[in-house]
């Protein structure tokens, strides 16, 4: 990928958000949000709908200011800057391309609307727009209208248009939300390339945990207008700070348990705890599918469970089991070589054991 040459001049900026608050009526969309984005970082804002992630992104962009709190771009207070002065490259969820303009005019728009003394000459605008089109791999499509493009192509135009203004930072609202699964995967890898190439401090909003964990340097997990946890993908996955994070980051089984001396007792079976946080007494234990073992011996240790279904596709075998006295099945992923498929059949009773569990106080 050729260098865009649009962001060489300035080093990527640091963003510092402090105690941001905003409410819509009685609903607190942002309830005291503080965090720092390191220069050049690719950060995901992850959360369910209504968690405030888009509100946060729009506040940083200046599209809908927060009521309280400060946002700094390096050492400059951004809340006092106008939208133009902020120079934020914003990519909208539905792209918001100007439908009556060609791809080329869309990309050139941000340069053409500059005040005369800052505006590059038309020949330079043309040159820069061409370069951006090549950069987003859409060379030759400059005369098309947005309606004549596929979803993925529109997304690329939207990104090129945002990059044209030589932004201080890049913000993307659900960048892959409106695309089908295949294009989504392609664009994901591509966005990572774009980030590496431009070096821009980049934030994107998503409700797809897989997307966030795969793409981002760090993930901010939000809920009810607050930050639940900030960390690298492996940190938030391996060491979730709250049970919300644990549940939100995908497939996990939840057990009521009694915590005693670094072990969790679930219905008479002991689950080793991955991190002893000094809790004692009643609690909840979370176990991910790959942290279970199946014991075939009918009188063995562990929780007795009835096999509901076996899906032996791919490197791991996914087994659905039912536990006595528990609502809803649990899912277990076992490496193919560790399981004798003949023994794990629907309706058979087996025993399951956890190799690790994350524990939180009950409540």
């Amino acid at each position: 990928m050729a260098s865009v040459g649009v962001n060489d001049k300035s080093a990527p900026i640091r963003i510092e958000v402090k105690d941001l608050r905003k409410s819509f009526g009685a609903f607190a969309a942002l309830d005291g949000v503080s965090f720092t984005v390191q220069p050049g970082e690719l950060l995901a804002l992850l959360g369910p709908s209504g968690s405030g992630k888009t509100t946060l992104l729009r506040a940083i962009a200046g599209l809908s200011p927060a009521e309280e709190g400060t946002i700094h771009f390096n050492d400059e207070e951004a809340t006092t800057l106008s939208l133009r002065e902020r120079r934020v490259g914003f990519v909208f969820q539905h792209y918001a391309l100007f439908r009556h303009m060609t791809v080329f005019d869309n990309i050139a728009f941000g340069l053409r609307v500059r005040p005369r003394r800052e505006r590059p000459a038309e020949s330079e605008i043309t040159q820069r727009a061409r370069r951006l089109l090549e950069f987003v791999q859409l060379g030759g499509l400059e005369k098309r209208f947005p309606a004549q493009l596929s979803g993925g192509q529109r997304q690329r135009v939207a990104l090129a248009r945002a990059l044209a203004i030589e932004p201080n930072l890049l913000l993307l609202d659900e960048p892959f939300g409106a695309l089908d699964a295949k294009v989504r995967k392609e664009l994901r890898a591509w966005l990572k390339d774009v980030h590496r190439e431009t070096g821009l401090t980049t934030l994107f909003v998503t409700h797809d945990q897989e997307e966030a964990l795969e793409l981002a340097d760090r993930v901010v997990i939000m809920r009810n207008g607050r930050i639940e946890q900030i960390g690298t993908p492996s940190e938030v996955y391996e060491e979730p700070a709250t049970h919300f994070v644990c549940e939100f980051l995908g497939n996990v089984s939840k057990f009521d348990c009694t915590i005693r001396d670094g072990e969790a007792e679930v219905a008479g079976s002991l689950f080793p705890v991955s991190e002893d946080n000094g809790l004692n007494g009643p609690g909840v234990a979370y176990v991910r599918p790959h942290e279970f073992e199946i014991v075939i011996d009918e009188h063995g240790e562990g929780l007795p469970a009835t096999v509901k279904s076996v899906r032996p596709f791919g490197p791991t075998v996914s087994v659905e089991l039912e536990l006595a006295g528990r609502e809803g099945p649990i899912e277990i992923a076992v490496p193919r070589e560790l399981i004798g498929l003949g023994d794990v059949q629907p309706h058979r009773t087996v025993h399951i054991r956890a190799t690790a569990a994350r524990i939180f106080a009950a409540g």
Partner: protein
Amino acid sequence: MQFISTSPRLANVSEPLTVRFLLLGLTLVYLLAMLVLPLGVIFVEAFRKGYETYAASLLTDDSIAAIQLTLLVTAIAVPANIIFGLAASWSIAKYQFKGKSFLITLIDLPFSVSPVVAGLIYVLMFGAQGYLGPYLQAHHIQIIFAVPGVVLATIFLTFPFVARQLIPLMQAQGNDDEEAALSLGAGGLRTFFSVTLPNVRWALLYGVLLCNARAMGEFGAVSIVSGHIRGKTNTMPLHVEILYNEYNFVAAFAVASLLAFLALVTLCLKTALEWRYSGELAVSRGH
């Protein structure tokens, strides 16, 4: 064999052929009798005594004055309602506030009020015996039985047309495009003229056409506020009525044919617009 077996089933979904022809025929006969023939009669009557009489009756001072007044009133009412329509639809589509649905209902008021009532309202407000009458008289401002009254009544009756076309379209389009333009550094005016306006241009044009047709053809309200002063406050529809009441049929039909012609032109433009931009217009009439 399979092809044959499916075709009767397809036909069964629809009505028998005879019913279809009957329905279509009924519609055509009705349209012919109620719309096409009367419209044709206008032109036949207008040219009954030849082209020269037709031209002569259009070129009398009173007729020319009526045509001029109609054009003047339209030239004021249409731009006024473009501005009002844009302002109203912008605020309804892009802002959140209480009483929004009430405002939308209010905009529809001229559609539901009889034009005669609308005219009377203005007489009551600005007439010699009206609320503002004494004040206006003291300052030698005449509204009723003068051109300003005709303009006011026309604006009142035509103001929903542009707004009604724009509101649903702007609501469907949302704020994203404007926000994109602003975040790219465009100012408010620039955003309006290069993003907002182009996004609604066809719906706006469509609204303007409807507004224009109604402005030229309005009779009831204008009839009350104008006072039928020949050469001064007579618009084309009023002039037609006067000529007709004077048994001057050829002249009446001549002016009427001009009005009908303008209406047909509007209709053609409207159809052309619908055909060309059906997608965008569908949004604005989707309710």
